[in-house]
């Protein structure tokens, strides 16, 4: 499903800096994987490479059978629709209500009004926000905003969900609520990749953990013992 072969990414801003060095890994369809590491380890670079925001300096990345190095610019939107993404800062449109934020993801895919009207309420119920569909993001708690972001990420039926520090801005209770939701999504068949540095949740979830240190994969364990 996701396969990285000898991937390196180098930034050149005056001095050469390796964000990722010779990373090879494989994530199967339907897996739940944590990618952990300290700040600057290269976790976000990995997410950006998977979203085709960046191109690797070396190596190849294959996602859902598509070689990202060979993907043309005009094919990127279609590819990104198959990958949902969630970020630490939620990235919601502050001037639009909950319903509009989720519908927005369908609008950009040229979905019909009928499809939007059917699918958005379903997604909002799925994340437990059906009653707050009229609220603006500013009137919601951090956990609720992240749920909206998850609903938006899932509304186009992606095969993969990438979550970059999804609980980074949340308190303990909301962190667990979000992790529970991500787990449910995974159980429904979606591949979930969560980037985090919160080892407490990683230990508690008992999932596969890939550790990145200074741009290199240093461990890949089926589950981390507490």
């Amino acid at each position: 499903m996701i396969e990285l072969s000898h991937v390196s990414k180098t930034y050149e801003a005056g001095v050469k800096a390796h964000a990722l060095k010779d990373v090879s890994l494989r994530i199967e369809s339907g897996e739940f994987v944590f990618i952990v590491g300290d700040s600057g380890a290269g976790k976000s670079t990995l997410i950006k490479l998977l979203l085709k925001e960046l191109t690797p300096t070396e190596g190849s990345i294959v996602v859902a059978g598509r070689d990202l190095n060979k993907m043309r610019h005009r094919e990127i939107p279609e590819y990104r629709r198959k990958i949902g993404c969630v970020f630490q800062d939620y990235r919601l449109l502050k001037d639009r209500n909950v319903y509009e934020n989720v519908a927005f993801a369908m609008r950009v895919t040229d979905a019909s009004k009928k499809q939007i009207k059917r699918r958005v309420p379903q997604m909002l119920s799925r994340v437990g926000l059906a009653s707050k569909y009229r609220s603006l993001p500013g009137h919601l708690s951090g956990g609720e905003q992240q749920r909206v972001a998850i609903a938006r990420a899932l509304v186009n039926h992606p095969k993969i969900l990438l979550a970059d520090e999804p609980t980074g801005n949340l308190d303990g209770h909301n962190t667990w609520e979000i992790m529970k939701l991500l787990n449910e999504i995974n159980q429904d068949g979606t591949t979930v990749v969560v980037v985090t540095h919160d080892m407490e949740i990683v230990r508690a979830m008992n999932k596969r953990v890939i550790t990145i240190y200074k741009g290199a994969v240093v461990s890949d364990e089926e589950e981390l013992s507490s």
Partner: protein
Amino acid sequence: MRLSSLGYNIRQGFKNIWRNKMFSIASIATMAACIFLFGLFYAVTVNFGGMLKNAEKGVSVTVYFDNNATQDEIDDIGTAISKRPEVRSYKFVSADEAWSEFQKSYFGKHKDAADSFADDNPLKDMANYEIYLKDVSKQSALVSFLEKQAGVREVHQSAATARTLTDFNSLVQLISMSIVIILIAVAIFLINNTVTVGISVRREEIGIMKLIGAKDSFVRAPFIVEGVTIGLIGSVIPLVILYVMYGRIIRYVANRFNALSNMFAFAPVNSIFKVLIPVSLVLGVGIGYIGSRLTLKKHLHV
């Protein structure tokens, strides 16, 4: 793009205009000034062209023959004139016709004054060809050609009138084109700024759109709508003003200056606006479209 998506993008385009009210108003005003001046100069040029054509009808070249020119030579000159492309019409005026015309215009009712000449035609050497041109600017070329012909004594022309009219018309066209080009550049620059502000205000939204799989065309659409709408409003406003103004001005001139309106007819409102409306709309919408496309290419990388 689906109709509902198109509707959504049109609404977003209008929202952009509303969000950047000041820049939008500045762009619309510049565009309106550009189209207004374009329309004004167009109306002036068309009317001046009409006036010029009218004046040109009266501008003629007269060819006089040598005293000893034979009829064959005169006929040859006539044939040469008929072959010139710039000639609209020409006629042979015999010495008798010239004298009789002169008597009519100079002696008028006092015909008896002319009787003293009896059969002695004082204009016996003034048989000529009177030539009318299609285009006054070609007069000099025709005159130099005629002067070289055998049997030609003298060629008379109303050079100054012709040159002044032609030069003035060219000057009006040159000035109007220069002003319009400068204004088009200013309009494109202002639309560029308006769309740039729109992009910076919506940068976060654009980033989100791209991450969730929006195609380039979907991201661009609201900004194109913004530019085109500014262009459209900026061309409709001056067209309405010009339409009202032009009708009033020609009515005013016709009532106030009867002599002038007897000399030539103003181009009717419909004939001016039949050209001006489509050209201005295409110009306005085109400038809006090009202005926003250039900005998107520079700032959006989509």
